């Protein structure tokens, strides 16, 4: 990923910083200018807890360039406890089969190996099963 984009998205990627709508209190991720719930302006930062559950998922074996050393991997829509859904890889799965409804939590991991592209190595959020205990 190119440096300017990386810099811009850093907060969102490293710490799941989104927004809360000052008008209707909807939580928003990724951040956007206009609240998708009420259509008004939303720019107040909001820190998501990083907890949620698997909303749906699949497995990728034929990974795109930059992701091949991670394949096969599971990728999911994760419904955050605060409401929004995010797209992310699942990680640290061990032997537990992925299932819809599985509780997961955010961790920061290497997302993409830039290979021969210029630019920084990309880190960001993935989700792992919530440890029992």
């Amino acid at each position, binding site marked *: 990923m190119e440096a300017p984009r990386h810099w811009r*998205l850093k907060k969102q990627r490293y710490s799941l910083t989104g927004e809360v709508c000052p008008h209707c209190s909807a939580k928003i991720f990724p951040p956007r200018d206009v609240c998708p719930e009420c259509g008004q302006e939303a720019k107040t930062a909001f820190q998501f807890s990083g907890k949620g559950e698997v909303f749906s998922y699949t*497995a*990728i074996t034929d990974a795109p*360039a930059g*992701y091949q050393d991670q394949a096969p991997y599971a*990728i999911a829509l994760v419904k955050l406890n605060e409401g929004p*859904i995010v797209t992310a890889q699942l990680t640290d799965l061990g032997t537990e089969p992925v299932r*819809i409804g599985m509780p997961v939590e955010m961790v920061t991991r290497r997302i*993409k190996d830039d290979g021969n592209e210029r630019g920084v190595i990309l880190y960001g959020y993935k989700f792992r099963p919530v440890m029992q205990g």
Partner: protein
Amino acid sequence: MLPVGEHWDLSLRTLGARAVRKALADSGNLQPDAIYIGNGLANILSHQANLGALISDEAGFPGIESCTFEAAGASGAAAFRAACMAVQSGLVDIAIALGVEKITECDGSTAQAAQDLILNYEFEGTNGLTVSAGAAIIAQRYLSEYHLDRSVFQNIALQSYQHAQGNPYAMYRNGITEAIYQKQPMKNHPLGLFDVSSLADGAAALVVTREELIPEESRDDMIRVLGSANAIAPLSLHDRHQLLQYRAASQSAASALRKAGLSLSNMDLLEIWDAHAIDVVLAMEAIGLAIEGEGWQTDMTTLSSMGGCLGRGNPLGASSAYQLVETVLQMRGEAGACQIGNLPKTAFVQSLGGLGSTAITHILGH
């Protein structure tokens, strides 16, 4: 229309120009005022922008109007809709809608990566999602929500490959058996290899004009555009309020039918988008031909009658132009071995782009 496949020997400009000239010959040699080009990936795969000037000049028409339209899988339909609006506005007399995609210029992984650009790059693509994985995530949720298993996709896929057997322009013309389908490797669970369409080269074009400009002797072949609509929904899967509702598909279908003053029950032929088997299921539910959870139970006889994206092959930005050309052939009774029983008087043609984030619908009639 050129056969869908691997045209190693033809460049993008040649593919496009040939489809244009074939369509014009079919129209009784009308002279176009405009060529609207639907294309998705030439910038990446052919390192080529401004196809309007490149292809229109190559086809022998320097001086006319041209530009390129992109709406992912619905690019060709976007060009066709623009052609209809241009003619209807009175500003253009004769417009060509061309869909063209040149996939085999690059190795397969480059083409695959290019296809994935229809995802939200910042929040889907960079997290390792691919288009077919996105479709699989939708499919997984569908099966879970309605307590189904992946065998619900079998009928859709088998029928598409079976229809393609009679289509000389299709890429997969050997059909597949139930046994082969059931032994298929998984592409992205729960979607198997045969549930996901394959990219290939293709070009297809249509001529749009007013009735009185068509030469007397070609007028019998004329098909009318009765309605047209384009609608978008959030691009990213995570931004959709209801993952299993293809909202753009419902809105675009309803709006096109309303403009035509017709209802779905009037339609003799349905051309539905099947880049992934799950697309057919959700489109059927979205347009109102099936209730939620039952879109897979569809009678496929009059769906994707020439093989759809699965059987014909999927030349991305050109696929929706193929849908329209194939529908015209059916309505004229020129669909050969694919011809459906009764000559269809009306047809519903819907193209999706970007996992249902864009839907363009046309209602055609005699």
